[in-house]
């Protein structure tokens, strides 16, 4: 009994166009898995590197790295489901390579994740082989949890409007982390290590937190979209309530070499398939997005930091802000990118093209969900930080008036949408 992949029509057109290119093309398949079936929303070719070997060998490192970067650009609910290859070589000859590729991609992506998949989750990755000579497509899946798994046949069916009535759950969340730096080592790696540890603890708090959807705590197995609203696009706002970790360390006071804090807000979003999604799925996907977006940004900042080589004693760095871009299919699905404070939207558009092969214009981008962080002069480094500080701290925020107005507008919109869906 193989898996069934329901694929957007636009993917077929995209793959056909790639068939006309010379040489083999490899790329990624993006979508969402569910217990019964899987949905593919996008296909993205892996960009050629300058030193790409002419010819037919598949560059596993290149594709894996592409997958790692693309994963950061996918909001909750979307993930790299597998790979495709468009080649004139027969599938039998490429199966081993493709199998290795599928595993390499999955291993790299999962090594960066701060959360672990649940036991009941789908662990199959898909491989799609398109033969340019015969135009035949072969679809196989591998269970990436089992290193010895063999290829299983799977169905690949094109359809229109696969994600046209997918639901969106989102929230804006305050982050307030404070971690000590070790006393005896002050290198950059140590800061990265400490932050990673701190993020793990915070991720656990988020994961065990209470999730309210549209103001209510829904029973886990209840359907998110009750009744006849199946074909209407739904947007839900989530609230997350957390408790501090009850840790009784034997040494209340420890030596440290300083501290590092991450404070500000992020916008989190997750998409859910429209096949009777449950409240607990919404909660799980949103929480994962919350954790991923913060972890990715911290990671990106540290990667930039290491390259700049400037090791000041005490400094403040802005995390990039999240910008969303709709995917050109019918539906609410978006991808995202992170814009650093010294970048313009042109850089975002370039990355969207290079990494996701999306042609976007500035007006397509949604930059209203987060505001660029600004470092202010008056930061008091001796000030004690507290987890979950009250959100209305004005010192970082020059746009309070705009924020308030926007907040009111958003609330009004959300309220009117609720009214509409209750009608």
């Amino acid at each position, binding site marked *: 009994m193989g898996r069934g992949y329901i694929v957007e029509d636009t993917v077929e057109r995209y793959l056909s166009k790639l068939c006309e290119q010379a040489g083999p093309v490899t790329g990624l398949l993006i979508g969402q898995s569910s217990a019964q079936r899987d949905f593919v929303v996008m296909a993205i070719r892996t960009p050629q590197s300058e030193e790409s070997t002419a010819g037919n060998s598949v560059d596993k490192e290149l594709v894996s790295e592409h997958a790692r970067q693309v994963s950061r650009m996918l909001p909750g609910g979307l993930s790299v489901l597998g790979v495709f290859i468009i080649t004139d070589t027969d599938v039998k000859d490429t199966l081993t390579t493709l199998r290795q590729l599928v595993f390499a991609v999955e291993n790299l992506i999962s090594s960066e994740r701060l959360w672990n998949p649940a036991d009941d989750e789908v662990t199959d990755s898909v491989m799609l082989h398109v033969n340019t000579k015969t135009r035949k497509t072969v679809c196989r899946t591998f269970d990436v949890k089992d290193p010895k798994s063999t290829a299983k046949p799977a169905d690949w069916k094109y359809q229109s409007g696969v994600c046209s009535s997918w639901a969106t759950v989102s929230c804006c969340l305050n982050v307030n982390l404070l971690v000590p730096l070790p006393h005896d080592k002050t290198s950059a790696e140590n800061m990265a290590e400490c932050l990673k540890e701190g993020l793990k603890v915070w991720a656990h708090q988020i994961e065990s937190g209470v999730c309210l959807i549209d103001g209510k705590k829904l029973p886990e197995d209840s359907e998110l979209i009750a009744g006849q609203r199946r074909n209407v696009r739904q947007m839900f706002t989530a609230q997350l309530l957390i408790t501090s970790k009850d840790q*009784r360390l034997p040494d209340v006071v420890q030596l440290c070499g300083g501290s590092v804090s991450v404070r500000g807000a992020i916008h989190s979003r997750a998409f859910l398939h429209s096949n009777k999604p449950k409240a607990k799925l919404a909660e799980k996907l949103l929480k994962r997005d919350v954790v991923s977006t913060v972890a990715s940004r911290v990671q990106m900042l540290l990667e930039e930091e290491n390259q700049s080589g400037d090791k000041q004693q005490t400094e403040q760095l802005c995390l990039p802000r999240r910008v969303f871009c709709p995917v050109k299919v019918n539906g609410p699905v978006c991808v995202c990118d992170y814009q650093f404070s010294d970048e313009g939207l042109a850089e975002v558009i370039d990355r969207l093209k290079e990494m996701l092969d999306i042609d976007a214009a500035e007006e397509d981008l949604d930059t209203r969900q*987060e505001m*660029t962080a600004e470092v202010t002069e008056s930061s008091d480094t001796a000030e004690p930080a507290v987890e979950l500080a009250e959100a209305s701290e004005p010192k970082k925020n020059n746009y309070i008036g705009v924020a308030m107005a926007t907040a009111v507008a958003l609330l009004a919109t959300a309220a009117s949408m609720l009214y509409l869906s209750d009608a």
Partner: protein
Amino acid sequence: MVVVDSDSEIILRVKGPLELKCQLDTSDAQLMQKVISRTFESLRSQVKSESCVLAVCDSPVFIWPNRGALATPEEITPNAPCEDLQQWIQTDDQDSAGKRSAKKKSKRSSSASVINLGLMMEVTQPGPLSAPILSKTVQKSHFLTTTLPMDCVVCTSCGDAIKDACERLLEALTHQLCDMEKVTLQHMRGPTVLVPEVLHFLLPEPKGLVTVVYPAGVSDSQLEAQRKELHQQFELPDDRPYFRRANAYHFPNEPYKDGYLRNPHVVLTHPTLDNGKVYLVQGIYSYHHYMQDRMDDNGWGCAYRSLQTICSWFQQQGYVERSVPTHKEIQQALVDVGDKQTSFVGSCQWIGSIEVQAVLNQLLGITSKIMFVSQGSELASKGRELANHFLTEGTPIMIGGGVLAHTILGVTWSETTGQIRYLILDPHYTGAEDLQLITDKGWCGWKGPDFWDQTAYYNLCLPQKPKVI
């Protein structure tokens, strides 16, 4: 135990950890105090902010106390009475399978009901807001990380509005943070910082439940000055403890971790005699009996078990800190005082009231009076002495005679007719901690004078309360 008008009082208890984290320079004590005070101030603002949420345990109810008691589900309004919250709480013995409705009626117990709430923080809010900033401070210093175990109690009546109860809970939380700040700063010694701990004590009416913050890890013996202050503040007599850790109030719905039954006699109906008055043990004891603690002492250990019951009383009233002694420890104590040979330890030998007295003295520092009756029939005439004992000392009595030992927990005695009944706790029970069974079958029950062997002699050990706080 708690004597409360069961239909009108509700205890609201909010618990939750609050993280206390800050970077400190421990070389400068004054600066350290300032930083810690500032951190506490942030925590107070946090608790008073709109992000603070009270979650009603075992229910889908969440209340924002600083937003006018806004709550979810929306059926709960700020002016609704507190008792409405109880309908949403799911208790264990309800069938939750297959039922879609979230509303469930909860069973009322005979004492004041407790509604447990958890302290949570909402981390989401309407956006957009600015993206995060990473701040790095490189400076060799210290870092303080601990968790404050917030635990506040508010007694209110069923009909009080949820909004008002929340305001009081908020006040209690803020006040507790101040108390914790005081305790933390008071007990700071250089780089050592003690964590506060919270205990509730039930004082005699009308004072009711009182919350005290102590420094964790500091023993009761070192906190006598604080207790003196508290005794003065609450105008309590200074000859018996009220504020030792062992005196902490045990909430009705919390199970005891050790699994022993407490005060099984309270579920009994006391006998009515002409002009009879009931004189009972005062305070809390645990029921110790044969076969407990995987110790098979069936047939010989009854006096040991009675002694354990008495020791549990002294521990739970706060007179001693040591735990209830095992059979071996009891036997060793008797060897240590020279009453028995070393071969006694590990044996299955019986002990009597004199040995009980000796062990209480040796292990707990408690003195006891011995009462002797030459035949069981005389016990019927000891009403006055026994009544007096329960009035002035209120400790359980061990009675040994013939080959049996029992514990007397009280008497019902009529001064005019001389009629008497004895409340007996029987250590010969070998079953499980089943309150229903124990009381139904009379393992804890009222007995008449014919309970005693009328011709055997009996020794009674009457432990005396020390006059300390």
